[in-house]
């Protein structure tokens, strides 16, 4: 195999959809460093699980979202006391699904399913299409339970995301998601 064949396979040529409007939006917004989360914002408490958690709805969004995200409908979850962005979510343009950024570390776009829950680690983050999920905890090896931020994004995003704010010192033992009554409806166990 020649180097040309290998290079061809390394980064295949895709049939690309241009998005010039997105370029112009970004140009108007300014560079990534000067972007200000100024927009219009409505703070909402989420399920009473995280009263300190604000959900800010804004137009235009952080550059870290995948290019397939609909940046006209971005929802950002941040800690008001620090301004740290925990989660960003947006509808997936041209698809039935959503795009996300978790803790500025993990990003992607996910097709919608009727049900199902996915857990990723690290950072400890996931999503659930189960409408009943309201809260969650992670149990570490020593037995201590740490609450997760659980946020339901409505509208076209329509998914529940959950994330652990900090980092675990050691691997977790299990992650449990609960419904409104506190009943465990999804459990992930680390083997």
């Amino acid at each position: 195999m020649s180097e040309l064949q290998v290079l061809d396979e390394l980064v295949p040529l895709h049939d690309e959809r241009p998005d010039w409007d997105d370029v112009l939006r970004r140009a108007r917004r300014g560079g990534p460093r000067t972007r200000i989360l100024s927009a219009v914002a409505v703070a909402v408490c989420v399920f009473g699980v995280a009263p300190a958690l604000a959900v800010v709805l804004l137009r235009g969004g952080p550059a870290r979202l995948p290019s397939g995200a609909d940046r006209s409908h971005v929802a950002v979850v941040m800690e008001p006391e620090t301004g740290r962005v925990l989660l960003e979510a947006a509808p997936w343009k041209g698809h039935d699904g959503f795009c996300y950024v978790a803790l500025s570390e993990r990003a992607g776009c996910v097709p919608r399913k009727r049900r199902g829950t996915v857990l990723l680690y690290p950072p400890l983050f996931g999503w659930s299409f189960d409408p009943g999920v309201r809260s969650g905890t992670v149990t570490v090896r020593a037995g201590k339970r740490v609450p997760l931020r659980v946020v339901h994004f409505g509208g076209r995003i329509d998914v529940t995301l959950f994330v652990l704010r900090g980092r675990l010192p050691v691997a977790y033992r299990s992650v449990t998601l609960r419904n409104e009554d506190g009943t465990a409806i999804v459990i992930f166990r680390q083997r």
Partner: protein
Amino acid sequence: MLDELEAFYRAKLPELRRVATAIAGDRELGCEAVQEAFASAVRRRRSFRGDGTLEAWVWRIVVNAARDARRTARPVRLDPPAANGHAPVLPLDLLTERQRELVFLRYYADLDYAAIAAALGITTGTVGATLNAARRTLRAALEEVS
């Protein structure tokens, strides 16, 4: 000027994203870098002095954006897809950053030496010498693994 930028973006998007993906080491980062690069070009278009071609100016911005994306992202690696159960090996790690960028611009964007030189701000002689060295390294490594 804005129309020219848009025309270049629409005409060359696959090549732009391919090069940016290769440099950034991740397709999502590469696509993002291209969008940010063009946004930057739109904002800074009045600073384009016309010393070289508009295309070379934009390519330089795209390459810089892709480099920044790779440096700020978590380490990722493009692994060649497996073929017949055997993954082809392309030891890009043996190349310098400059050699890799030249290879990507030459093969993915199909730029000639003059265009690559203009995009990276180097001489055509340097482009030729660097590409020859890169090819020698790749061929030698491919012979070793085949």
